[in-house]
C-alpha cells in the first residue's frame, strides 16, 4: 500500500485518496475544439513508463486536490505541488540501491 504525502495532512495510506489521472491537462474551451480535439481531451492521457505528474484528492481527509510526481515503475513519489502552482521538474532517474553503492 502506497503512503501518499498530502500537502496538508502529511503521509497517509493510499486508501484515503482517489486518483485523478495525469496532471496539467486543463479544461479547454470546448467550443474552440474540433470533434477530434475534444474527444482527445476527453479520452487520451499520457501513460508513461516512469515518472508521471498525477492528480490526487485526499477524499477521506482534507478533501483537497493536489499534484505529485510518481514513478509508475518504482512507485517512488517525487515532489508534491498544489493546483495552479508551478510544476516542479521531473525527478531524475532513481539510483539502484545495493552493495557497493
Amino acid at each position: 500500500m502506497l503512503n501518499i504525502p498530502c500537502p496538508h495532512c502529511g503521509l497517509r495510506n493510499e486508501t484515503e485518496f482517489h486518483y485523478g489521472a495525469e496532471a496539467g491537462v486543463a479544461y479547454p474551451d470546448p467550443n474552440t475544439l474540433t470533434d477530434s480535439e475534444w474527444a482527445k481531451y476527453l479520452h487520451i492521457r499520457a501513460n508513461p513508463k516512469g515518472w508521471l505528474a498525477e492528480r490526487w484528492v485526499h477524499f477521506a481527509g482534507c478533501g483537497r486536490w493536489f499534484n505529485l510526481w510518481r514513478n509508475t515503475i518504482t512507485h517512488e513519489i517525487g515532489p508534491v505541488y498544489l493546483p495552479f502552482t508551478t510544476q516542479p521538474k521531473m525527478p531524475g532517474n532513481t539510483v539502484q540501491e545495493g552493495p557497493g553503492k
Partner: protein
Amino acid sequence: MSEIIFSFDDKMYKGQHGEPLAAALLRNGLLSITNSTYHGRPRGVVGLGVEEPNALVQLVSGTQESMLPATVIEVAEGLSARSLTGIGALPDAPDEARYDKTNCYVDTLVIGAGLAGLKAAGEELRAGREVLLIDDQPGPGGHLRHLGAGLPSALQDVLAHQNLTYLSRCTATGLYDQNYVIAIERRSDHLGSAAPANRARIRVWHIRAGQIVLTPGAFQRPLIFANNDRPGIMLSHAAATYVTVNGVRIFRTAVVTTVDNQGYRDALRLHNAGVQVQAIYDARPGAKGSSVDAASAAGIPIRFRAAVLDTASNAEGALHSVTIQDLDTKDAFEITADLLAVSGGWTPIVDLATHIGIKPKWSEEHAAFLVNHFTDKLRTAGMLAGDFGGDDDPSVFFGPALDAEQARYAYIDLQRDATLHDLRRGVGAGLSSIEHIKRYTTIGTAHDQGKTSGMLTIGALCQLGDAGQGGKPGLSPADVGTLSFRPPYVPIPFVALAGRERGELSDPIRITPLHQWHVEAGAVFEDVGQWKRPWYFAKPGESMEDAVRRECIAAREGVAVMDASTLGKIDIQGPDAAVFLDRIYTNMFSTLPEGQCRYGLMCKADGIVFDDGVTTRLGKNHFLMTTTTGGAARVLAWLEEWLQTEWPDLKVYCTSVTEHISTIALVGPKSRQLLSELVTDIDLSKDAFPFMHSRMATIDGIPVRIARISFSGELAFEVNAEWGYARYIWERLWALGRSYDLTAYGTETMHVLRAEKGYIIIGQDTDGTQTPHDLNMSWIVSKKKEFIGKRSFQLPYLKATGRPQLVGLLPEDGDEVIPEGAYITALNARPDEHGKIPHTGFVTSSYYSPALGRAFALALVADGLSRMGEMVDVPIGKKLLSATICDAVFIDKENIRRD
C-alpha cells in the same frame, strides 16, 4: 516445563508444554509421521521450523486449521492433531475463533530476534529510537535457542529496554514499498485450552517503520542423493537440537554427511548426547577449525571427499543403512545407521528482501545467496548479510552425480515429491530459466514455497553439466540466479486476513434515524449501497406482491409515507453559487427564484448522465442540492474537483449535510389534509404553496422545511428536519394518520410509482452510456448556456442513429412482469449470418402497476423513441414474450394529480 497429554492420530502421548509437536512426536518414537502426497512414501520430520517439508498436520482441537508444520505447533493442554498427506481439508464449521488486526508505526522494525537482530536492536535503542522486534520463534535467541543456551546478559538488557517492544510468534509475511510490513502474530494456540475466549488467535500487524533491519537468519540445506527422503534423514541442526534440547532418545547410530563445519558441531552434539556417530562424511577435500578438531578429539571418524549416494530402509520404511561414495574413486560402501544427519550448507532467508525487488547475490565463499543492503531505510545483518558466525567454510556441493535410476528417488521438493529426474526432464524439454523450471516441475510451489528446495534446484541445475545430462558445464548459481519470492512468506489463514470484518462488521451498514421504527413495523430491508432501506412493509400473512400493491394504492388513492433520508444533500453557498450550478447542471438554475425547487440533471464532460436530483434555492446565494442515495459522495467530490482544480475564481463553498437533514415524503391525494393537521403555521393550499416550492415551517416548535416535490406524480410534500427530530415527526404523522389509514411504503413501491410516471433512476435505467437525449430528456438540456458535457452532444457517436433510447414497454400479457435485464429482440427476428439473434435493447425497470391493472416496463431500445407502437420480442428462457414499445409515461401525462 510441565508434562501434559496430547492427542495425535487419535492416540494419546506425553509431551512437554511449549515444546514443538515435532519434538514430542519424535521422542515418542514417531519417526514416520505421514506418507508423501504423490509417491506415498513414508516421511518424518526433517527440519526445525517453517521450512519443514514433510510433517504437516491438521489440528483436531480448536480451529481445525490444516497444513501446519508440526515443527511450529507448540504442545499445549488440549492439543489434538492428526497427520496429513500434504493435502489439507477445510473443516465444515466456520472458524469462530477471534482474529484481529492492528496498525503500528515505529522508528525501527527489526525482523528476527537472533543474535544479529538483538544486536541491531541494541544499536537502534542506543541511538534513541523506538524499536519493534519481531520473531517467529516462541522466544528470542535464534540459534541459541536450538543450542539450549541462554541469552548473554547484554542482550537480555536489550529485551528489557523500555523503548523496545518484542513480539514472539510473530512472522513477517510481506515486505512492501515504503517500509510497510505485514506480520502475523500467533497469540493463543500455544496457551492451549487455557487461552481466553476473547483473545485473538492471530493478530495481523500492519507496520510502517522508519527503518527496517532484516536479520531473518538462514535455513540449513539438505543434499540430493538417492532415497534422501526416508524417515531418519534429517537436517543435522534439527537432529542435534531434538536430541540435545528436547531429549529425543530414539536414535542409536548416526551418520553425518556434510559440506561445512556445521556438520561437525552437530555430530559432536549427537555424540555428547550418547548417539553413536559412525562417521562424518565430508564432501570437501579437507577441513580445519575448532569444531573439526573437537569432533576429531571426541574420536568421531572423519572421511573427506565422501558423500551419501543412496540409502536403504527397514521393514517400516525408516532409514536402515546408508551408501557412501568416495567422490574421487567412485567406490561405494554401505554403513548402518538409524539417523542420517545432513548438513548441506546454509540458505539465508532472502524472501522478504526479494519481495521489494532486491536481488540476492551469490557468494562462492558462503555457498549461498546473500543480501548486503545498507540504506537509511533498510539494512541487512546476520546470516543474510553473510555473517555465518563461525568457521563454517562451506563448499559448493549439492550431492554426488546420480544415474537415471538413482535420480528417480532423489528428492528435491519433498512436499511435491519432485525429484532430480523431474528436473532433468524439464531441462531436457528445453527449459533453462529457474522460473520456468519451477512451474514445469512444481518445485517450490507447495506450502513451504521452496524454502529448502529452491536452492537445491539451483544447485542441481549447476551440476547437470557435470553429470553429463546436457547442462552447461561450469554453470554457477550466480548464473542461474535465485528465485524471487512473493508474499506471504508463510501461509496465512484467510480468516486471519478477514479479521473482525466478518458478518455485520464486514461492511458499514448505514441507517436512517427512522431505522428502528422500520424494524419494529416489520419492514423487509433492501441494501442500497451501504444503506439499509425498507423495501416493503408486509403485514402478517402478506406476500411482497400484496404489500407493494397495498402501498401503491394507498399512495395513489389515500396517503402514504416514506423515509427518504438517504438522499444525498449538499449545502452550496457563495456569490457564484448560481453560476456554478448553471455550469454543473444541464439546465438553468440562475433563473430559479428563491424558495423554489428545480429538478436537475448533471453530466460528465463526455456528455453521459451522471446524477440527478432536486435543488432548492434557499437564498440569493444559497442552494440545497439533493443527489441520488448512492451519489452523495461522488457528487460532492465532483463539485469540489471543479471548484478546486478548474474554477478557483468561483466563490462557492459546498458542505455535505446528508445526515444533518432527514427527509420524510408524504404522498397521496390526502397528504395535504393530513399534513395540515401537523403544520399549522403556513398555508399548504395549492395556491399559497405551489408545486416545486419550499417553505420554512414548524412542527411542535421543531423547525422544518417543507417542499412540494413529487417522485410519484401524486400530490406530495417532503418534510425536512434535523436528523434527531425525524423519529418524533414520523411518530406524530403516524398517530394523526390513523384516521387516514396512513400507509408506510418502501423502495419497491417508490419504484413502481416513479416508473409509472417515467421517472428514471440513474444506474438502473441508465448503464453509464446515456446522454439526456437518449433518455428522452432533451427538454432539460439548455441551449442558452455552457455546461459540463454540452460539447460532447455534438460528437458524431452520440448523435448517431441506433443509440439505445429510454421508452416504455407494455407486455402483451398484462399479468407477465418481464424480468429486469431481459434482452429485447425485433419481432420474429431470425438468426443473422453468425447464427445469432441480435438484440435491440434491454429492460431496465419492470413492475406490476395496480394503477394500470397490468404489468409495464421501462427499456433502453435502439432508436426506441422513433419506434413507438412497434411490437418486439422478449425471450425469457424458452419462452418468447411479446411487448409493445410505448411512451415512458404511463399515468397522468398531463401532470394533474400532483396538485
